[in-house]
Each structure stands twice: as structure tokens, then as C-alpha cells.
């Protein structure tokens, strides 16, 4: 190869890298949607009708936008929580359990204080939600920090425990006994005090205060991570426990706190699910995701989609919320089974993750410098990239 063609080859590689890094997200979306279209065709539905319904349902008009934002708010909070934990090199898979605990704690608070005015009750229930989630995040955090218990295992187990506690409480001690059902009681609480409902910000939409709170929290967490000395320590601990310890940082406490904050975000999301709901009760259906609607897991996807940066996560949560809201509309318009919509969401995830993988590969092959200096004792990849979480090994 002549020197010239080498240069051209390199330039082309650079171009490709650029394409991959800036268009990875839109590209993966388009790819997933194309595949979804083929699936719809196979099911005898018209994909154009379907996607039209999806976009209209999610983004057309203030009502649709409001619904999308409301659907996005808990996702955003969970995702932001994932970001915090990830910076400390802890992977929080416990969103489901933390959501449930947040929902329970906030509902119980509202039920116990029926006579408080909104201005006191709303902050209280939100704090209670955050506290419930925080407790459920602190446990695996502390176990990881102090006893080196793998957080992925412990958070998944705690999800199961939380769901069992929730199902028991909602079917037993907290159940609404006034309902008259011939088929047994629905596992739900009484109607929560009106003063605890999250106020609607824009009339004739569902857009409630929780959306604003979620966005403010996301920005706040960004500031916390990148502009405060506590955030600095979280990052340091996440990147090198040894160097942080040597520098005199309280490594274990920082890790535990990061997981606690992460849990608090998820718990707050749980409170939004309750007090921003249309029924204004805490409801489940006895299944694992009956209360959360899988937001604890979807939030992970949102966080990855948002490059684990709280600010990007705002956009990614909104898009993903749109997919969920529009998915319902798509289903109604085309009559495809609900599973089809779930599959579509899954496809987006798969494409995002694989494109990110390709992006990383192209980066490492065309500039080996990034890899070659990696010494055996360092984490393998910079924390910025999406798929690093599972590649990082724990000491």
C-alpha cells in the first residue's frame, strides 16, 4: 500500500468513527424501526399506519407530549440514579425494588397524614419515597463496599424481596377494604388524600409537577457529579479504588453513598408513579412488574441510551417515553399484539448496544493507543462508553 492510500484509509476510518459516534443513536433507532416494520408486515399490518400512529400518539399535540413527558419522568429519575451509581463503578440493577420501596413508603406517608395541606404533604411524600428507595439502595451499596458482595446479584435478589413485601402489604395491611369485588380484593391502596396528588401544570394535559421535578433532579445530579467535590470523589472511587484510598478518600462510604443516592432517585420515581397516576392509588397486579411497569429495567436502557450522562439522559428518557406511549397507539391502530410493541422496544435496545460496541471497536482498532496503555491493573475502558459496565471487572 502506498503512503497515499494508507492516508486515505486512515481518513476514511476517521470518517467512519465520526459517523458512528454522532449517528449511532439515530442509526440504531432507524434500524430497529425498519426491523419492526418487517415484523408488522409479517403480521399483516401496515407499518406506515403503525408508525404514524406511534408518532402521533407520542408527540402530536400538547396532550400527547404531556403524556410522553409523564411516562418519561420516572424513567428519567431511575436512569439518573443509574448514572450516579455507575460513576462509582457500581451497577444498580435494583431499580425495580427501589421503585417499589419508594412507592410503598410514600403511599404509607400519605395515608398516615390525610389532613396535611398540599404544600406540606407533597414534599413529605416525595421525601418519603426517596428515603424508601435510598434504604433499598444503601443495603447493596454497603454490602458491596464493606463486604465486596457483588451488587448485581444483591440488587436482583433485593428486587424479588421488595416485590414480595409490596404484594403482601398491598394485598394485606395496606389494601383498600372498601372495594366491593366479588372476585376478591384488588391489591391496591385506598384513594390517596387529594392533597398528595401531584398538581397538573398545564391544563388539559397530564403533565404534572413530577416531570419538572425529574428534570430539575437530573440537572442537579449532573452538577453533583461534575461540579462538586463529592462528585469528584465518586468519580475517583469509581475509576480507581486504590488511588482514592491512598489519597485519603473514604472509599467505602463514598460507594455506599453513591448507591444510596441512586436508590433515592429510584424511590422518588416510585413516588411519581403513585402520585402522578390517574388512579391516585398504589396499585399492582401481583406480577413482578405490576407496579413498576418495568421502569427499573427500562431506566437502565435509558441511562445507556443517554451515555450515562444525566443531561443526555433527559433527552433519551423523553424519546423512550414516547416509544412507550406511542407503542400503545400503534397497537390500537394496527391491531398487532402488545408483545409486538415490547419486541420493538427490545430491538431498539439491542441495536443501541451493538452499535455502541461497533463504535468502540472501530475506535480501538484505528487508534490502538487507547488500548495499549491499558495496564493490567486499570479498568479496561473509559467510563464514558456505554458498554463498559459489564466489561469492568471488580477487584
Amino acid at each position: 500500500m502506498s503512503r497515499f492510500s494508507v492516508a486515505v484509509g486512515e481518513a476514511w476510518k476517521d470518517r467512519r468513527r465520526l459517523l458512528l459516534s454522532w449517528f449511532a443513536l439515530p442509526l440504531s433507532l432507524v434500524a430497529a424501526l425498519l426491523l419492526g416494520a418487517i415484523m408488522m408486515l409479517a403480521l399483516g399490518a401496515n407499518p406506515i399506519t403503525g408508525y404514524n400512529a406511534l408518532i402521533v400518539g407520542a408527540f402530536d399535540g400538547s396532550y400527547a407530549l404531556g403524556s410522553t413527558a409523564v411516562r418519561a419522568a420516572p424513567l428519567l429519575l431511575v436512569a439518573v440514579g443509574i448514572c450516579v451509581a455507575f460513576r462509582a463503578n457500581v451497577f444498580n440493577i435494583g431499580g425495580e425494588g427501589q421503585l417499589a420501596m419508594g412507592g410503598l413508603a410514600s403511599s404509607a406517608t400519605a395515608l398516615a397524614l390525610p389532613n396535611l395541606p398540599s404544600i406540606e404533604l407533597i414534599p413529605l411524600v416525595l421525601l418519603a419515597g426517596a428515603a424508601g428507595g435510598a434504604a433499598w439502595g444503601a443495603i447493596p451499596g454497603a454490602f458491596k463496599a464493606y463486604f465486596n458482595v457483588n451488587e448485581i446479584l444483591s440488587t436482583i435478589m433485593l428486587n424479588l424481596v421488595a416485590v414480595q413485601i409490596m404484594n403482601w402489604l398491598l394485598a394485606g395491611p395496606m389494601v383498600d377494604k372498601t372495594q366491593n369485588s366479588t372476585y376478591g380484593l384488588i391489591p391496591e391502596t385506598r384513594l390517596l388524600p387529594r392533597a398528595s396528588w401531584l398538581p397538573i401544570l398545564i391544563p388539559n394535559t397530564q403533565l404534572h409537577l413530577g416531570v419538572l421535578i425529574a428534570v430539575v433532579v437530573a440537572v442537579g445530579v449532573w452538577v453533583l457529579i461534575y461540579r462538586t467535590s463529592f462528585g469528584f470523589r465518586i468519580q475517583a472511587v469509581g475509576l480507581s479504588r486504590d488511588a482514592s484510598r491512598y489519597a485519603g478518600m473514604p472509599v467505602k462510604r463514598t460507594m455506599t453513598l453513591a448507591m444510596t443516592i441512586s436508590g433515592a432517585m429510584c424511590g422518588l420515581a416510585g413516588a411519581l408513579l403513585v402520585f402522578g397516576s390517574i388512579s391516585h392509588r398504589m396499585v399492582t397486579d401481583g406480577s413482578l412488574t405490576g407496579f413498576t411497569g418495568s421502569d427499573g429495567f427500562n431506566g437502565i436502557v435509558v441511562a445507556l441510551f443517554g451515555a450515562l450522562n444525566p443531561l443526555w439522559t433527559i433527552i433519551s428518557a423523553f424519546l423512550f417515553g414516547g416509544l412507550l406511549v406511542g407503542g400503545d397507539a400503534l397497537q390500537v391502530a394496527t391491531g398487532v399484539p402488545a408483545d409486538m410493541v415490547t419486541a420493538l422496544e427490545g430491538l431498539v435496545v439491542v441495536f443501541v448496544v451493538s452499535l455502541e460496541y461497533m463504535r468502540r471497536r472501530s475506535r480501538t482498532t484505528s487508534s490502538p493507543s487507547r488500548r495499549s496503555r491499558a495496564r493490567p491493573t486499570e479498568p479496561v475502558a473509559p467510563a464514558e462508553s456505554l458498554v463498559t459496565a459489564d466489561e469492568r471487572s471488580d477487584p
Partner: protein
Amino acid sequence: MTTPAASPSREGVPLLQMMGITKRFPGVVANDRVDFDVRSGEIHTLFGENGAGKSTLMRVLYGLYRPDEGEIQVNGAKVAITSPADAIRRGIGMIHQHFMLVDTLSVAENVALGEKSQRGPLTDLGRVSERIRELADTYRLNVDPQAIIWQLSVGERQRVEIIKALYRNVSLLVLDEPTAVLTPREVDELFVVLRQMTEGGRGLVFISHKIHEVLDISDRITVLRAGRNVGTIQSSEASRARLVELMVGRAVALESQPSKGTGGEVRLSVKDLHVKGDRGIEAVRGLSLEVSAGEIVGIAGVSGNGQRELSEAIAGLRTPLSGSIRLGDAELSAANPADARAAGLAYVPEERMRDGVVPFFTVAQNLLLVENRSRDYSRLGFLRTRAIRRHCQELISAFDVRTPSLDTPARNLSGGNIQKLIMARELSGSPQVLLVAQPTRGIDVGATRYIHERLVVQRDDGTAVLIISEDLDEIMTICDRVLVMYEGTIIGSADPRVNTREEIGMLMAGVKSAVPPLAGEPATASP
């Protein structure tokens, strides 16, 4: 297997020729049209300041970086080396300063790693072990194929790396600062092996900052300055002064003769300390020492005699079995680095990449690692970006840390510049006690002098300085008092102005009566 002597080909054609190699990184030209060649049977040394581009040039050769410009010829044929595997296929091996061995595997397994087994998918460890023994015999490299890597000392690990290269039958071997981590005796042994390796016609590239080693082992020496080749000379024509002049571009005096410290109140006092080492054996056995404000105390000794465990215990990174450590007014009992720092300790660790820096953090973030809570750099928990940047800018210019910017990740700095960064950070507070392990390991001669001067300034400001170093020259130059550590205790003390290198060397070898105990120092030697 063929011996490498069979391959070096046409007469007069060098084994390796690198022509006009340019490698740029964001903000720096690490190699600027460098010409470099290695002949069969020679040891060719690369010499130059920290960040001059030595490692970069060798990484280009080993296929870790692709050059922006230039050409590489192996045995006269133009090649494009795209990966380390490719380099090894072409007979080029490299031993990095940070070894690339898998800790939990045996020597034989590490050597077999990445090699095709002759038994297809099955491993072939028996044959590998046999071959390792053969090579170990031929080159008198004392290595047990069955030993597990983590049990080995640094010197032993290096021998494993050499065996690995020999096993792959390389005809050109690059050794990037191999002697930085070795004891003087191990260096001598290494040099014997290196000489023997060239006899078969191999070519070696050697990198070191120690001029006496360079003059001792090299056939030719190439000096890099700021990425450029500023001269390739025969070792016989080289001298200390000439090399230094080439390296920095002007003549400089390297020897400094610092004044003697006065000494004051005791700042660090260790009594009857016992500390367990990594391998479960007691590494520090009843050690006592004292360091006063305004003096530099050096701990000399062959590495592996408990120095690392001692320093980690003082720094609060390792819990002692028994004994006491007093730092200023504070008694440090349980291992807690934060307590030690709060009591006024600054510590430059031996394991830079692991303990000293967060490799993915930027230069600025690494400089802030210790003081991130200080009032000067954070207000109400928020980082004061402007003040931080100003402070960092001052530090990197004061310590001559060569970096394209404050926002360059620390992992992209050259080895010596990472050490300077850590030094800058640790000296920037006003520590009561300064503990420095291997202060100038991997540091070029100019910067070494500068660091020594800074240590002396620190001492004159009233800091108690404790230096752990294997470099006897360093100890003799800057210390006011020398303690020799042997098998976990202080076997004796010496005055560098009175005692000779030989006397201290005897103590280091464990010969106790070599130096008569100095008056007024009964407590330092342990029972």
C-alpha cells in the same frame, strides 16, 4: 527451532531500520522524523529526558501505535507492523516496564499463553516447561516453570518476560527501562544475560535513565530530545557529560551537594513495628525508627526486605500486627490513610499507576486528588474551577510536568512525568512528614537533580523527610542519615558523610558489624 543467528541475512543490512518515524498525539509530536536502526548482535540504547519519545518509538515498532509517517524495515524488507502479534511473528519482542503477566497463572502457562499448542486444542504444558528449563539453563535464568506469578519478585517476573521472549525466538528484543525496578545485583545478572543473548546475533534495544548502566552495556547510543533524534554515537565515544549535553541541549552540572540538615523535634516515630507482607510472612519484624523535623533520613536496602510494607503501614494502607506509629501528635493504630494524611503525612507511593494516580483522570483531576476538600479548591462542596486550574498550572510549571494540557488523561503522560505529577501534588501541601518511596525511579537525570533539590528545600522548611530508595547514590547524595533495612528490621545506621558506599553495601547484604554504631543513636537498631 532455528537459532536467530540463522536469520540475520545479508551482510551489512541492519536487523531493523526505522526511517523518518513521526507519531503525533493530541498536542504533542512524540516522535519527529526519527531515524533509528539496530544491527544484529548489538545493544542499542535509547536515551533521553522524560517524555522525549523513547517508549513511543518502541511502541510504534511493536505495533501498538501506528506511525503517522515513516517506514520500518526488518532485515532490509519494508514492513507494516499492525499489532504486537504481528511484531512477534516478525521476530520482535518487547518487555514493558509494567509487565504483562497473568498473576494467577504459572510461569509455564504464561509462556504458553497466546502460543499455538502442538497438541491442537489441548495444552502442552509439559513440553513448554521442558523448553523453559532448557532456556533457563542456557541463559542461567533461575526460573521455576511451575511457580505462580504473584509469588515472584519483580526481578523474577522480569526473567519470566525474558524467557517468554526467548521462547518465541525473537531476533530483536526491546527492553523499556528494565533496570528501574531491579537491585544493583539483579542489574548485573541481567546484563550478563543480555550480553549472552546478543551472541546468537540478536539485536537488543535498551532504555534506561541511569548513565552508568547505559555506558556499561551499550554498543551504540541514540539520544532523543523532544521527539527528535539528536545523535547516535558509539558507546566508546560517549561520556556522562556528552550524553547529558545531548539530552538537554546544553551542558549542565548534575552533581548537587546539598547542605546538611539540622534536625529538630521528632515528627515520626515508629516503635517495635510488626507488619505482615502479601505472602503471609511477617515482612517487618520489630522495626523502630525516628525522623525529626528538618532532616532527610534514607532507608537503604535491597528491595523485598520489608520496605514496601513499612511504608504502607506508615501511610495507613496496611494494618500493622503490632507496634506503634506516631505521626506528630497522632497515634496511628488502625490502617486509615485519611488519618495519616490528617496528621500531616504526604506520601509518594512506589506503585504509581495503581496508587499514585487515577489513570483515566486528567492531569488537573489527579493534582486535586488529595486536596479536593480543601477550602482553597471547594466552596460549600462546589469545586472552584478557576482556583483549581490556576493552582494546577503553577504546579506543573514548578515541577516541569510535560503535558499537552491540564486536561490530558494522566495515562497519556510518559512514565517519568507521571512521577513528577505525583511529586508536585504531594509536595504542594506543607506536610509535616514526607514519605517518598523510590523518588526518582524512572526519572531522567536532569529531573532527578531537580527533585532532590525540592526534597532538600522541603527539609529546610522543617519537614521530616523519609526516603526509601534502592539507589545508593541517591541516598548518599541527599540523606542526612541512612538506615539500612535488612529482613524486616533496621540492621544499622550510617552517616553518608562519614561512612563509605562499601560499608553501607555490606550492611545491605546483612553483614551487621560493618559499621560501628554511631554515637547517640541507640534506639534505631532493633533488638
